């Protein structure tokens, strides 16, 4: 299997197929990630589309020192944050009260609540993103910090608090509940 970085090289050489392969590899992963940050699926799809357009346009600025996934997630997070509806989320919350959560709509029925739904409810967007990149995308702390444009210390602390909050909420460790109360919403 050709690596992402090799595909980027080929795309920079003018291969449209190479970039198409990158799109195929990341479209589902990005959409799944962005569903938690957008009001609905259409907004998430728009964010994914904008991400690929930005990546295609600025492909020359990709630094091979970092993995391609780090770079594309960095773009995705920025694009999602710039969406106008992102800032209007609080104002539109009342209007969307009856709208289904796009993330919840994509989760198959299970006997327990999906932990990512819990994370979305409990954690801040950045903490959610850090947890996602760590446990789903298997990124290192350094890569997560790069993708989120934060320091490694911030990333470590945020992930630790996020994990404690989730563990306490899920009942894995009752002692964590008290600790989470002190941290509040992270």
């Amino acid at each position: 299997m050709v690596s992402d970085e090799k595909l980027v090289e080929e795309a920079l050489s003018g291969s449209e197929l190479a970039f198409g392969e990158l799109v195929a590899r990341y479209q589902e992963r990005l959409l799944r990630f962005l569903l938690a940050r957008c009001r609905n699926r259409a907004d998430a799809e728009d964010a994914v589309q904008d991400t690929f357009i930005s990546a295609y346009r600025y492909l020359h600025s990709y630094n091979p020192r970092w993995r391609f996934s780090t770079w594309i997630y960095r773009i995705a997070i920025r694009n999602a944050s710039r969406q106008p509806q992102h800032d209007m989320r609080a104002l539109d919350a009342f209007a969307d009260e009856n709208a289904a959560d796009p993330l919840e709509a994509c989760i198959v029925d299970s006997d327990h609540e999906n932990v990512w739904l819990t994370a979305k409810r409990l954690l801040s967007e950045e903490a959610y993103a850090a947890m996602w990149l760590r446990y789903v995308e298997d990124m290192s702390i350094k890569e997560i910090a790069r993708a989120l444009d934060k320091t490694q210390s911030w990333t470590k602390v945020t992930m630790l608090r996020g994990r404690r909050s989730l563990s306490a909420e899920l009942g894995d460790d009752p002692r964590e509940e008290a600790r989470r109360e002190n941290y509040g919403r992270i």
Partner: protein
Amino acid sequence: MDEFERRLKRDAEDIHIEITPEFRERIDASLRGTKRIKAVPDMRTSGINLWWASSLTGLAAAVIVVVLINWNRPVAEPVPVEPVAKRTVPAAIDELQGLSPPRLIKTAEFTTPLEEELARLQADIERARASVRKDIEFSF
């Protein structure tokens, strides 16, 4: 990997996303209409090069200015340094001292103080005389 991490991974996989052909076609269409921005020179490298170029240019200009300023300046001739006299007594004196008796010197040594003393005395007398004359004129 502990149970918590396994659950995070498992639940992420439970988020089922179906990529519709329309969505993929939309992405492809938008990419077709997008122009790739060509790479621009790395500003960090060019910045360093610019710094070096400007520094060297400035240095060369400073050297040229210094050379031009000093080019036509007349070279000051070295001032001859007179040797410091080791002795203050003219050599002729030595020759004279060798004579016996050194009349000229002895005479000068003897007469000069007396002449000075005489001149002082005459001056004192003259002042006293003027003073007495003034007193007499004042009395009468």
